[in-house]
C-alpha cells in the first residue's frame, strides 16, 4: 500500500489540506472525549440507578443476583444507543469527506491535469480514499473502544443467561445430550460469526461509507452535488438494508415454522413432510442463523469492493 504514505504526492496533499481544516480538526480532537464522557455519564447514571433501586428492596443473595442481568441489560441498551448516534454522525462525516475527492477535481478542472501525471488511476484513487479515511482515525478509535466495551458487556450478559438460566436447570440427561451429541457446536458457530460481524462493524461501516462517497464523487459534476448524492445514497442504503433484512428474517422465520410444524403448515410442500427431530431442528435453525450472519458480513465486504470498483471505473472515463 505505497499510496497510503505521507511521501505519496496525492496522499500527502490531501492529508495536508485536511489538517488545515479547522472544523475537521476540532471534530477529530473532540470526538473521543465526547464519546467517553457521554458513555461514562450515561452508564454511571442508568446503571447506578438500577443497582440502587434493586439494592433497596433486596433481602437475600438471590435478590442480589437479579441486579446482574438488569444492570448489564441497561448498560448494553445505553451503549447501543450511543453507538447508533455516534455511528450515524461518523457515517455522515465520512461521506462528506469522501464526496469532494473526485468531484472537486472535476469542478476545478484539475482532474484531467492529474491524470496526465505518471501516477496511475488506481494510485490516485486509493491515495485519495486512504487520505480521507486517515483523517477519521479519531472517531474510528472512539467507536472501536465503545464497540469493544459493549462486546464484553454482551458476552457477560450471555454468560449470565447460560450459567444461571440455561445450565442451572439442565438435568443429567440434558447435559449428556448437550455434550455427547455436540449440541454446543451450532450455537458456538453462530456466536463466533455474529461476534465477528459485530466487532468488525466500525471498520466495515467506515469503508462502506467511504465507498459510497467515492461513487457519488465520481458520478457528480460538482462538490455540492456529490455531497448531496452521497448522503442521499447513504440514507437509501440504510433504509434498503433495514427493509431487506426484515423481509429475509421474516421469510426465513416463516419457512422454519412451516418446517418444524408440518401439521400446521399452510404450504403443501411442508405439510406432507415428517416432523423433524429435535436434533435436526437444533442444527438446522442454528446453522441458518449462522449462515445468515456470514452472508451479512460477506455482503458488506462485497459491497465495499463493488462500489470502489464502480467508482474507479467511472473515474477512468472522466476527462477521457
Amino acid at each position, binding site marked *: 500500500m505505497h499510496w497510503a504514505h505521507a511521501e505519496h504526492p496525492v496522499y500527502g496533499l490531501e492529508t495536508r489540506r485536511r489538517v488545515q481544516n479547522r472544523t475537521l480538526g476540532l471534530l477529530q480532537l473532540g470526538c473521543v472525549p465526547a464519546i*467517553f464522557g457521554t458513555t461514562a455519564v450515561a452508564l*454511571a447514571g442508568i446503571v447506578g440507578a438500577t443497582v440502587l433501586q434493586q439494592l433497596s428492596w433486596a433481602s*437475600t*443473595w438471590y435478590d*442480589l443476583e437479579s*441486579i446482574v442481568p438488569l*444492570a448489564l441489560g441497561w448498560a448494553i441498551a445505553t451503549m447501543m444507543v450511543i453507538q447508533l448516534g455516534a455511528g450515524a454522525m461518523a457515517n455522515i462525516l465520512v461521506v462528506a469527506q469522501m464526496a469532494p475527492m473526485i468531484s472537486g477535481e472535476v469542478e476545478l478542472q484539475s482532474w484531467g491535469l492529474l491524470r496526465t501525471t505518471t501516477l496511475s488511476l488506481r494510485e490516485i484513487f486509493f491515495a485519495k480514499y486512504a487520505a480521507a479515511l486517515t483523517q477519521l482515525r479519531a472517531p474510528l478509535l472512539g467507536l472501536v473502544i465503545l464497540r469493544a466495551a459493549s462486546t464484553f458487556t454482551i458476552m*457477560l450478559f450471555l454468560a449470565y443467561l447460560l450459567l444461571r438460566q440455561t445450565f442451572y436447570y439442565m438435568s443429567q440427561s440434558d447435559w449428556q445430550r448437550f455434550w455427547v451429541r455436540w449440541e454446543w457446536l451450532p450455537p458456538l458457530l453462530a456466536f463466533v460469526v455474529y461476534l465477528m460481524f459485530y466487532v468488525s462493524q466500525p471498520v466495515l461501516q467506515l469503508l462502506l461509507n467511504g465507498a459510497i462517497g467515492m461513487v457519488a464523487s465520481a458520478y457528480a459534476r460538482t462538490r455540492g452535488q456529490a455531497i448531496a448524492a452521497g448522503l442521499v445514497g447513504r440514507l437509501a442504503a440504510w433504509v434498503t438494508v433495514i427493509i431487506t433484512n426484515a423481509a429475509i428474517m421474516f421469510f426465513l422465520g416463516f419457512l422454519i415454522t412451516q418446517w418444524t410444524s408440518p401439521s400446521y403448515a399452510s404450504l403443501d410442500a411442508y405439510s406432507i413432510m415428517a416432523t423433524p427431530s429435535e436434533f435436526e431442528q437444533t442444527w438446522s435453525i442454528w446453522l441458518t442463523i449462522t449462515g445468515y450472519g456470514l452472508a451479512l458480513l460477506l455482503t458488506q465486504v462485497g459491497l465495499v469492493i463493488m462500489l470502489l470498483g464502480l467508482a474507479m471505473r467511472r473515474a477512468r472515463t472522466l476527462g477521457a
Partner: protein
Amino acid sequence: MSDQPASVSSSAPRAPESRGKSRIRTRRLLRIGCLPVTLGVAFLLIGLFGFLFSIPPTYVRDRAEYQIAAFVSVSLIILLLLQLAATWLVGLLAANAGAQASKGSGQMLVRRLRVVRQRLAIPTLSVVLLRLGVVLVITVASVFAYTNLLSSTYRPEFLEWLRRDSGNLYFLIALLGVALPYWLGGPFLRMRFSAALGALAGSWAKRADERTSYGLAARLGAGFAAVLAAMWGGAIGVLVVLSIVDPISRGSYYYSNRLPADLPALSSGAAAALLIGSVVLLAGTQVGLSILLTSLTRTRLQRKYQRAQKNLADPLPGTSEEAASGDTPDGVHGDTAISASG
C-alpha cells in the same frame, strides 16, 4: 511646527501582550468568582425547590414534619447532585491544565503541576463547601431526629439506623474519623490525580492544540474505565460466587436454599474495618497514582526533549517539525508559560 503624535485609531488591533493580560485577568476573575457563584446557585436551587416542595398536600396532618422533611430531602439531593457535577468539572479542568503543563524537558513539570493545583484550589474549595453543606444538612436532620424540637416526629430511615446502631461505636468512630475527612478532603486528591493524568496524556501530543483533547480524553476515559470496571467486576464476582456455591438447581423451586436466607448484618468492627479499608484504598490509589503518573510524564518529556535536541543538531527532512512542536529547552519557550498563561 512640532509633529503631532499620530492618534491611535480605536479600530486598531490590540497588541498581543494586552490581549494576553486581558485573558489572564478574565481567568483570575473566573477562578475567584466560581466560589460565590457555586454557593449562590446552591442556595438558589435549595430555596426554589425547597419552596416548591414545602407546600404540604391537604391530607398531611403534621405540616411542620412534612415541611422539615421536604426541606431536608430537597437540600440533600440538590447538594449531592451539585457536588457531583462540580467534582466532575474540576476533574476536567485539572486534566486540561495538567495537559497544558506537559511540555519542555520535564524538569519544571513538578513546579508546573504545583501551580496548576494552586490555581484550581478555589474551584476545588467550592466542591468542599458543597460537601460540607451535605454534612450540615445531615447534622440538622439529626438534631430534629434526636430531639423533640417543634414537637415533630421526623424520623428518616438513615437516622433510625444510626440510632438503632448507636452501640455501633467502632463504625461511628470510623465514619467520623476516617470517612468524613476523606469526604471533605477527597476533591483535592482527585484534582491532584486528574492533573497528573492530564499531564501524562498531554505528553503524547505532537502539537499544542492536541493537549486539551488528550487530557480530557484521558480523564473521561479513566471515568469510563472506572464505571466499566465496577460493573464488570460486580457481575463477574456475583457469577463466580453463585457458580461455585450454587451451580445447579436441585429441585423445581428457584431457591435451592444453599445460600443464607437473608443478607448477613456486619458486626461493628467488621463494618468499621470495611469502611476504613475502602477509604485508605481510594485515597492511597489517588495519591500513589498521582506520584507514578508524574514520574512517568517526566520520563517521557525528558526522552522527547532529548530526541528533539538530537534532531535539531542533526536535522533530517521532516524532523524539524518535531523540534518546533514545543519540545524546546527549558527557559527558552515552554517554561516561561508558567507566568504568562492565566
